[in-house]
């Protein structure tokens, strides 16, 4: 460390330069602190709903502050006025700063709307590593409106090796894309039957998902706050992710997008641990305003 001398003297907090967000503490320090936050709040409540609410409140206080700080520092004083803008702010900027990674690979600039024509292309790029700029160029040349990771990926479900369902939002419209890799003629009848059954199932489930246009999800295999936490069996569906849901709610609500945000465990087939989904349900006013803004 270069900073060997005494701690810098500032007469008060306003004199101190705004933090650059580069300073770090160990994950353990945070984990112990968070654990103690949960333990303290357990002593203050007599049921799980109440505990979740208190954790959410604590997160809310963090979210409300982080919004203003990050818009200033990371976004060059641009505010987010649109629904998708703020969502993308949450899962890219906020996630990246707070949890060290951005949630969804977003290439940006690909989703060109304004035309009624929608071109859907599919190309095999192998790995996206180091190829994103190249890919964007090709896509723009071919006028492909959606590419995987293109605009805002709301949900990705990998059903099996051959099936994947992606929920995309492009320019206010929700697209459900099912990417299917059909078995070739030479394969067993059994394999083919399985494939078609699974495809039917996927199609059915998407139907249900589109009923809630005001709901968005951020899925995370393991939330940072849950890294070391095992929920006892008698606590049911309790999820410490309520704290993160609170952060998200704090950011959204303070930016003018009130929403109900909840954290849920969602079992993943073939995995010991369920993943956590942060479910965001926007208030009616938000959608109404969004509609008038066009």
């Amino acid at each position, binding site marked *: 460390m270069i900073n060997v001398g005494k701690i810098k003297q500032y007469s008060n907090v306003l*004199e*101190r330069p*705004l933090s650059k967000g580069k300073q770090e503490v160990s994950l353990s320090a945070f984990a112990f602190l968070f654990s103690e936050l949960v333990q303290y709040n357990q002593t203050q409540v007599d049921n799980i709903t109440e505990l979740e609410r208190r954790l959410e409140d604590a997160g809310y206080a963090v979210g409300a*502050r982080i919004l*203003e*700080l990050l*818009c200033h520092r990371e976004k060059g004083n641009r505010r987010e006025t649109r629904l998708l803008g703020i969502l993308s702010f949450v899962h890219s900027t906020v996630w990246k700063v707070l949890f060290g990674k951005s949630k969804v690979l977003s290439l940006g600039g690909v989703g060109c709307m304004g035309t009624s024509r929608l071109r859907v292309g599919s190309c095999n790029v192998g790995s996206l590593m180091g190829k994103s700029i190249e890919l964007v160029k090709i896509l723009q040349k071919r006028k492909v409106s959606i590419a995987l990771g293109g605009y805002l990926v709301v949900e990705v479900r990998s059903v099996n090796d051959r099936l994947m369902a992606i929920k995309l939002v492009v320019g206010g419209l929700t697209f459900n894309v099912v990417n299917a890799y059909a078995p070739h003629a030479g394969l067993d009848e059994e394999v083919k039957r399985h494939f078609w059954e699974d495809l039917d199932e996927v199609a059915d489930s998407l139907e249900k998902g589109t009923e809630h246009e005001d709901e968005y999800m951020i899925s995370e295999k393991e939330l940072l706050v849950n890294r070391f936490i095992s929920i006892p069996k008698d606590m049911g569906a309790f999820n410490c992710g309520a704290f993160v849901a609170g952060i998200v709610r704090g950011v959204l609500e303070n930016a*003018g997008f009130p929403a109900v945000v909840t954290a849920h465990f969602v079992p993943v087939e073939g995995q010991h641990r369920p993943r956590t989904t942060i479910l965001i349900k926007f208030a009616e*006013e938000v959608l109404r305003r969004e509609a008038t803004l066009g």
Partner: protein
Amino acid sequence: MITGPTFTTAEFLLRPSFTALCLLCELLRPVSSANSSRSLLVIELNLGIRKMASTACFMIVSRNDIPIYEAEVGTAPKKEDAAHQHQFILHAALDIVQDLAWTTSAMFLKSIDRFNDLVVSVYVTAGHILNMLYIHTRLMLLHDSRNDDGIKSFFQEVHELYIKILLNPLYLPGSRITSSHFDTKVRALARKYL
């Protein structure tokens, strides 16, 4: 003749702001009809401006249009009435801000309203609202200066100060800013840029 927004008594009463209510009483005192009180306001202001060296009234408005900080930062001699009127003009411009704020992602909204020689400039920060009135924290300045760059710089630096206030876990968002350091610094910035 009135170039700024026109107000009706109903608008007055609807506005939940404490400051506006104070002003309402003040305005209603000399004459009972709403019309004459409006013209009275104009006359006083005109007189006021001629006397003043420079006028600048700065206000930070939080959720539910509640002002959490206000300061007369012009060089003109302080006058209680003038201060109230300035705050009133700023409040009247809030409706315009509310609509405008959603049409741009910029924070600095430049001059959104004028009142005779006075101009209302607004800077909308990223956050802070509550209770069904989805409005951001707004920094509002009423001024007679034409120096747009100076105003922008002023807003940006005050914004940074505001972020520092907000980040303090012991400050309750939306409550009054009581820090005297903050006040001193805002006034210094006003001298520098306005």
